């Protein structure tokens, strides 16, 4: 306990120092919003990775893997292929250049300036400000669950302490401070996860032996009894994919793998990272560290989650989700009970680091959405951008903390963290991805087509979340209050749709609306403006 506290204090001191460093070097709003566009590639890649991977990925999705099995490794693959390779090489370079020529400081501003539309910038800003708190709350819950389990203090106090520390250094440093600390935290996360995978595999007698034991664990009669409910839903063991077409399969493929795997391409805090480096060389170099980082962080979490069942079962006779008391507690309990104390401290710091780096970028993104995109640009008001942004951050923190508090009241068998994260990623993909791709690659698309796509994707996504996708609609309870059932399609011929994640319907709707808009309305942007966008 004393060791944990000392390590935590040293850690807090170091990140305060980085926050202060960022504060000292932040003089203009470009410094505050984009780190002055002069960030080192290693810092950028580690910051991107640390922002991308949070407690949500490690605790939430690691816990989901503990229940659903190694099928989540498909998400790691998509994260590396789309989230790093395609994002950096295909999207990153154009985003960097276009962001620079259009003097864009935020993701909504990039879209708004590209199509010369205040509505697009304001709409994107409002979506980010209103819905990112769901994701932020999921990340906060991940960190808080871990602090609660590790230190044995109440959820509420852990939550307040955690939110206060993050708020302080985002408030101080702007994006420079955030990216310095992110890089430092990314380093801790990386080492922590490497230790964890080596330790776990060696404890279980090597890679093949560990997987073999996990495969055979499913044959144990006690395990069969405990997983009976899961098997009914399609679960087929931790080293197998769920039964094709079953509710678990739909949840794994559409919500977890597709929602997050595709949604990452249109994540505002990640897109902004591309605009912080000065040339394509930095992005080329960042692909190396980014790829390795994602493999080590998420890959390890999705392997450790399922393997934790062997440890829990041997000691308690129960599978992980039962022994730990819920999906989101699997990774924290595993670290607390089955790894050596000294490593617990390192991992504790890695997780706090993971959560803080993501949270700080989220708060930064929400603050800039309000200060820059909605207030200054969409509403055309003049004022102190940094002050308005900071006020936006404060409001965003309050909403997120309230949501994280409420999330703890939900049913623990739900994968709350993973679901909240996937919900926001899916909504971002549906609202922003067709617009973002069009902005970068289709020169003559009209702004009306972009608006049609963004609004359609958003509306269909929200409708599906609140009224069709049962997993979310039943928790949000609006459908129940209005129609007295957990999903509009329940007990109808379309009941299977209740298992399909919003992204599967909302993203294609957005693409169709954008295409129709492009066919109906021709681009009216001036040649001069388009030349500026594409800098030719």
């Amino acid at each position: 306990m004393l060791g944990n506290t000392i390590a935590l204090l040293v850690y807090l001191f170091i990140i305060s120092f980085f926050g202060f460093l960022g504060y000292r070097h932040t003089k203009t709003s470009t410094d505050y919003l984009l780190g002055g566009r002069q960030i080192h590639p290693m810092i950028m890649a580690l910051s991107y990775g640390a922002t991308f991977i949070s407690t949500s990925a490690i605790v939430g999705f690691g816990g989901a893997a503990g229940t659903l099995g190694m099928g989540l490794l498909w998400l790691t693959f998509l994260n590396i292929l789309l989230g790093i390779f395609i994002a950096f090489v295909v999207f990153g370079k154009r985003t960097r250049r276009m962001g620079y020529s259009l003097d864009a400081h935020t993701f909504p501003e990039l879209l708004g300036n590209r199509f010369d539309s205040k509505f697009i910038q304001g709409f994107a800003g409002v979506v980010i400000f209103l819905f990112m708190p769901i994701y932020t709350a999921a990340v906060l819950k991940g960190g808080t669950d871990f602090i609660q389990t590790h230190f044995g203090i109440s959820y509420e106090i852990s939550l307040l302490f955690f939110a206060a520390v993050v708020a302080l250094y985002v408030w101080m440093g702007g994006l420079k401070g955030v990216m310095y600390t992110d890089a430092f935290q990314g380093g801790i996360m990386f080492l922590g996860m490497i230790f964890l995978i080596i330790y776990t595999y060696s404890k279980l007698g090597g890679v093949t032996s560990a997987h073999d034991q996990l495969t055979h664990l499913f044959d144990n009669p006690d395990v069969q009894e405990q997983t009976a409910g899961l098997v009914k839903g399609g679960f087929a063991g931790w080293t197998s994919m769920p039964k094709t077409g079953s509710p678990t399969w739909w949840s794994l493929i559409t919500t977890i793998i597709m929602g997050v795997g595709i949604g990452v391409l249109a994540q505002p805090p990640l897109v902004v990272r591309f605009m912080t480096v000065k040339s394509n060389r930095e992005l080329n170099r960042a692909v190396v560290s980014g790829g390795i980082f994602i493999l080590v962080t998420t890959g390890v979490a999705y392997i450790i989650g399922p393997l934790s069942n062997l440890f829990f079962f041997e000691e308690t006779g129960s599978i992980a989700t039962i022994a730990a008391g819920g999906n989101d507690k699997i990774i924290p309990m595993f670290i607390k009970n089955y790894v050596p104390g000294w490593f617990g401290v390192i991992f504790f710091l890695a997780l706090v680091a993971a959560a803080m780096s993501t949270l700080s970028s989220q708060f930064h993104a929400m603050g800039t959405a309000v200060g820059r995109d909605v207030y200054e640009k969409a509403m055309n008001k003049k004022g102190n951008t940094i002050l308005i942004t900071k006020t936006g951050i404060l409001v965003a923190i309050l909403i997120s903390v309230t949501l994280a508090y409420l999330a703890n009241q939900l049913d623990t068998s739900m994968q709350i963290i993973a679901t909240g994260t996937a919900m926001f990623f899916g909504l971002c993909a549906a609202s922003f991805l067709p617009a973002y791709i069009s902005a970068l690659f289709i020169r003559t698309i009209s702004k009306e087509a972009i608006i049609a796509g963004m609004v359609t994707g958003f509306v269909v996504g929200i409708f599906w979340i609140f009224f069709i996708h049962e997993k979310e609609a039943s928790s949000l309870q609006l459908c129940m209050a209005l129609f007295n059932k957990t999903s509009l399609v329940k007990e109808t011929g379309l009941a299977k749709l209740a298992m399909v994640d919003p992204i599967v319907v909302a993203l294609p709707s957005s693409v169709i609306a954008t295409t129709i808009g492009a066919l109906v309305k021709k681009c009216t942007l001036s040649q001069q403006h388009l030349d500026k966008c594409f800098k030719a």
Partner: protein
Amino acid sequence: MIGISDSWILLAYLLCALSTIACVVYGVINWNKGAKSESDDFQEESDWKKKESEIEESL
């Protein structure tokens, strides 16, 4: 192979490793490319624009 019999899981396991290797190889090959950002960008963009006008003309 490596104690995993479901070929979909095994494939995901292998693809994770292969995609990381691809990232490393790409980054190393292009380690020093793209440094002189403005001229590189200009060339790339004018090539792109030329191609775009060709397509527009053919349409």
